[in-house]
């Protein structure tokens, strides 16, 4: 498999986020929450505070590193939930068909019809602001596309010889779904999940802006950006760096997703010879 430009750049950016997040305790010179000295508030970048400080006097660089943990958590956990729901519903609906398919299809249509931000907003309103709520809200929001893809892929796989052969060999339905169908639709699902991670990070920022995001003391990029948007004149660094972090990480996820799609596609075409 040739590694395209997209995968390299996207993977690089994503790796940066992952490394930053995982190594935050070692890379970050300051504690993102406790090392707040109001005497240091809104200092411009210098050799101590590489990205400057925010209005609370906290090191923006350290907070961005720790923020990567949050963003990754948001991206990964919400996409795991999405994917689990979407894949479970999609495969079973595609495989079993009948009333179950109709039901899942109807539900998917309903979910697609409600704009995701608004649905997330509603869920957040019910659960209250906070990390766990956000994970649930975003996890419940975007599974419909995954479900659709899983369903349509399953429909086309269902008539493939190897799935039918598995049936004639005596495999149970669940076993077929798990061993014959699931591994073969993981490609597009993975692409969806990667793109979804970017969407989740953006959604976190949007919900933060609407006052429903993750709340401090977690240094989430969305809330950092939201908090600092008033500072754009006085302490632009406090807004620019979190904004940049969001932009670059989402760009990374998106490029990676695109790259994966590009490299998966021809792979699938080889079947036609």
């Amino acid at each position, binding site marked *: 498999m040739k590694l395209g430009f997209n995968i390299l750049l996207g993977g690089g950016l994503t790796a940066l986020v992952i490394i930053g997040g995982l190594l935050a305790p070692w890379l970050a010179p300051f504690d993102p929450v406790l090392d707040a000295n109001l005497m240091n508030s809104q200092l411009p970048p210098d050799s101590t505070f590489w990205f400057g400080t925010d209005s609370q006097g906290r090191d923006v660089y350290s907070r961005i590193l720790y923020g990567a943990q949050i963003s990754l958590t948001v991206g990964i956990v919400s996409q795991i939930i999405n994917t689990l729901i979407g894949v479970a519903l999609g495969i079973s609906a595609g495989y079993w068909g009948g009333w179950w398919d109709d039901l899942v299809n*109807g*539900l998917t*249509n*309903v979910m*697609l*019809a*409600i*704009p*995701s*931000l*608004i649905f997330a*907003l*509603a*869920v957040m*309103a*019910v659960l*209250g602001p906070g990390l766990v709520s956000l994970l649930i809200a975003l996890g419940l929001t975007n599974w419909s596309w995954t479900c659709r893809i899983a369903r349509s892929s399953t429909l086309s796989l269902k008539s493939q010889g190897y799935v039918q052969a598995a049936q004639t060999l005596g495999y149970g339905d669940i076993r077929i779904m798990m061993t014959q169908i699931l591994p073969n639709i993981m490609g597009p699902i993975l692409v969806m999940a990667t793109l979804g991670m*970017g969407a989740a990070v*953006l959604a976190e*920022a*949007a919900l933060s*802006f*609407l*006052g429903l995001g993750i709340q401090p003391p977690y240094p989430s990029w*969305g809330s950092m*950006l939201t908090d600092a*948007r008033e500072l*754009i004149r006085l302490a632009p660094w406090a807004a620019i760096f979190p*904004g940049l972090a*969001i*932009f*670059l990480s*989402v*760009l990374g996820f*998106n*490029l990676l997703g*695109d790259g994966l799609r590009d490299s998966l596609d021809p792979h699938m075409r080889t079947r036609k010879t």
Partner: protein
Amino acid sequence: MLQFTIRRILQVIPTLLVVALLIFVIFSVVPGSFAASLFSDGRTTANPEMIAQLNRELGLDLPLPQRFLNYVMDLAHLDLGTSFRTRQPVLQLINDRMWASLQLAVAAMVFAVVIGVPLGFIAAMRPGSILDSVTMIGAVSGLSMPQFWLGLLLMYVFALQLGWLPSFGYGNGSLRNLILPAITLGVTPLALLARTTRAGVLDVMNADFIRTAHAKGMSESKVVRWHVARNALVLVVTTVGLQFGSMIGQAVVIEKLFAWPGIGSLLVDSVAIRDIPVVQGTILVIVLWFLLINTAVDLIYAAIDPRIKQR
């Protein structure tokens, strides 16, 4: 075709009903009540009798199934209820905001289509070229930007630094006020459109019938005009429809940022004060809008692609 149209329109109803139920359930368990939200600003002091009185007034003391029944009965009469806050019919409130929302959505879509589609087209004509790469990287970047960040940026540059455009607000619905929010809102669909157009055109360019067209001795430009454009349009129409349909919902952040008096900001404000009838009403309208646009897209689709009607 007429039957197809009617059928597609009727299919909207069950979805809408389920959405109504879903929203109803969600917002019946939401913490905080309208009455209690009234003194959350610390200005008024809480007054249990007043709250109880208000809840009674608003019918919030009735049991949940009863409330849902009333709600559905009202819906059946196309009555979305009365706002807790303004005591006006929800339909009226939405009506007041709909025009601004539509204006914004249409302007953003026009912006996205007028720039995104040609860009995608040109990129597809020269795959692998510098222009193609730049366009596509630009498109991904457009999709990776936090919307309100972009809006703020535009606001500072065009309104403040350059002073070309007003920074916020509806004005009296003047075009100048529309430009910045529309651009901000249009960036995502623009990027998506550029990408789908490119992908669609490339797809069509690789189709067998294009080889046939070449074998007929057609020039490149005729191939594009006679065979590529229309076929690629199918994909573009779908994307335009999906984007247009979800645009009002997506506009929430931008409406807040630019103080644009659309449905989105009405929704967010109503959520904040738990004006549940308005919340339910706006979401229903937003969903209805989405469904209708999608129905329209299906119809357009059927008009473009003769294969659809058969099914």
